[in-house]
């Protein structure tokens, strides 16, 4: 695997920071120990030794960043009558894509290691977004799975339909927005770490021309592109970001073509958002161009060009949620993790990131850990010159989720779908 020791250390620091912040914020006090223990426990598979927290995993399964859909949301009991709880993951790509799906599967294995014999996990990979999703869900339920995790935006409607048809199955969906009594949504503030990664990218650019390979122009991805651009322009005020939309989550040959086309256009730093594979990094490596990745720490494989990346630890959410099922306390709701609970982290820095830049990033990391999403505070203009946010005004959570503009500094338009 990748350099886990450093990652664990970072996560531990972030978790420690989280304790302090939650305490200061005066949130529901009783939830803190559980919420902060969850990340520590989830590290068990990554490190070789079982950490101290393993014995007391997320009791009560309260998650600081989780909100039930409503106060009277019913408790769904999807425990099996006998045997271990069977949970299944559905992936859009292969488990070895070097990014998104791989990271989901790392988390699935973390869940498996955490619960041992109490939970039996399985997965289906390479499931295309389309009619096959519903069929896959039905097959998994027929096999006795009572918890289904979805990991690609385009699976959402199938999950809504399946949740309606199977009210006794717990559905957990990543990166969507639709919910029901037995359908939860979980994701996290990648725009915060994207902003920090963008800072590293901006500082690495000599010409001020940066390039980004992006997937689909939906809210999640636009947020990331805008935050990355903002970070780059914080370090390199007049820089621009040229975005190529490849209209796919996972298409390495096309991703590489897009990255090469950007390099041919003269960009001297590359980034990516919503792109599951590190093919952009391959193009960057071949051309000797610094690269900020996405999804996972790829510093080991792309050392020469590596800057940093947004990385996810999905098990931060999944372990307490499965514990809630085992405890008979699962309710559906929305989870939006962030830096403070360790759901999103900034991957380790490459040698190309200077000490000065690291210090600047550390300062911003502290702010974003305290107030997620605060980089989107006005004055902010879109790239057509219209004012989006007046000075001092921030986006509401709903505005963040439904973002539909490209920020000043991004070259190009949102392509018509």
């Amino acid at each position, binding site marked *: 695997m990748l350099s886990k020791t450093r990652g664990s250390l970072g996560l531990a620091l972030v978790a420690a920071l989280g304790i302090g912040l939650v305490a200061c914020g005066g949130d529901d006090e009783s939830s803190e120990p559980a919420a902060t223990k969850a990340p520590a426990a989830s590290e068990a598979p990554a490190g070789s030794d079982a950490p101290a927290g393993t014995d007391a995993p997320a009791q009560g399964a309260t998650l600081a960043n989780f909100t039930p859909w409503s106060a009277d949301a019913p408790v769904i009991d999807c425990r099996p009558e006998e045997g271990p709880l069977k949970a299944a993951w559905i992936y859009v790509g292969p488990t070895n894509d070097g990014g998104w799906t791989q990271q989901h599967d790392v988390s699935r294995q973390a869940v498996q290691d955490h619960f041992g014999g109490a939970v039996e996990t399985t997965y289906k990979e390479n499931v295309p977004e389309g009619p096959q999703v519903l069929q896959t869900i039905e097959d998994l339920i027929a096999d006795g799975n009572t918890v289904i995790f979805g990991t690609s935006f385009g699976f959402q409607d199938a999950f809504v339909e399946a949740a309606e048809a199977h009210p006794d199955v717990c559905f957990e969906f990543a990166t969507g927005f639709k919910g029901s009594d037995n359908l939860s949504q979980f994701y996290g503030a990648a725009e915060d770490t994207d902003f920090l990664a963008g800072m590293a990218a901006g500082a690495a650019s000599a010409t001020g021309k940066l390039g980004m390979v992006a997937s689909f122009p939906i809210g999640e991805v636009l947020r990331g592109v805008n935050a990355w651009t903002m970070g780059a322009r914080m370090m390199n005020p007049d820089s621009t970001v040229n975005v190529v939309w490849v*209209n796919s989550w996972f298409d390495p040959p096309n991703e590489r073509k897009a990255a090469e086309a950007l390099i041919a256009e003269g960009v001297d730093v590359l980034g990516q958002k919503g792109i599951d594979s590190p093919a952009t990094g391959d193009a960057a490596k071949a051309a000797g161009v610094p690269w900020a990745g996405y999804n996972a720490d790829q510093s080991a494989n792309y050392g020469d060009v590596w800057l940093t990346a947004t990385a996810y630890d999905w098990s931060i959410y999944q372990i307490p949620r499965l514990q809630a099922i085992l405890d008979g306390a699962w309710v559906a709701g929305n989870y939006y993790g962030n830096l403070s609970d360790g759901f999103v982290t900034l991957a380790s820095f490459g040698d190309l990131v200077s000490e000065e830049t690291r210090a600047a990033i550390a300062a911003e990391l502290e702010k974003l850990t305290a107030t997620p999403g605060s980089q989107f505070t006005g004055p902010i203009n879109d790239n057509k010159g219209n004012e989006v946010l007046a000075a001092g005004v921030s986006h509401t959570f709903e505005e963040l989720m439904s973002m539909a503009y490209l920020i000043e500094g991004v070259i190009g338009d949102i392509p018509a779908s």
Partner: protein
Amino acid sequence: MNSNIFVIIASSAIFYGTPLFFAALGGIFTERSGVLNLGVEGTMLLGGVSGAWASQHVPGSAWFTVLAAIIIGMAAGALTSTLLAILCVTLRTNQTVAGLAITIFAGGVGLSSYFANIWKVAEAPVDRQVRRLDVFGWADAPVVGPILFNQTILTYLSWVLVVLASVYLFRTRFGLQLRAVGESPQTADAMGINVVKYRYLHTILGGALAGLGGVYYSLAIVPTWVDGMTKGAGWIAIALVIFGFWRPSITLIGAYLFGALQSLSSTLKARNVQVSGDVLDALPFFMTIVVLVLVSTRFAHRRLGAPAALGFPYEREER
């Protein structure tokens, strides 16, 4: 000058057209012998995954490993098409069905992805890859630099192959006999030409070249293995054989045309030219259909060199 859009497109046309040419050249040999190989896509994928595995596991210096990966990838392609030859030449099965079966069996959700899983090929990038060269230090020369002097060794090999293949097909006795086998195996047999041997050899050679095309994908284009990464290149290659009228030189031009179409979308998007990516990405396949319709006219069949016995198994007793 070198970021001139025409320079970029010409350079990537050659870069992305090269694997199409390898596979299509293989198709020319196979079809000239009278065997239709619809298994090219699956053969390319098996070549690609074997080459990627070899690049990760064969010890020795970097160039030796890459050479071994190329040879192993070609060998995997040759093995796959040996299976096709057994089916089509010895067992005289329907060639269309046999070829489709090979593509399904070896393709993106078949054997190639199975091998990728058990060999764990995709878990790490392919570090020992086929890189773009800087020939004579002219890679940065205006216009011609990126187009001609900044390609991979396999592209230069393909230019040698186009000459060798043309000479072989049209200037040697073996080439003449090969064409005779494809036109009229009965006549060739009566002349004492070993039809079965010619068909076997050229089907296997075709498979090796398709394997080389696959290696180009996993070692040069995306130096990582991805299941089904050729994404229809094998089918484009089959159309290219027809587009090139079973002639290597015309096929090379056709391959570069399709290579340009494949990279046009990214290039235009990076220039912020407002185009529909979906339409552009579909262009190579749309062109494939157009080409097939044009050349399937009776005129094309009579005048443009389709081997008359293409697709028909040869049985000596059958007259």
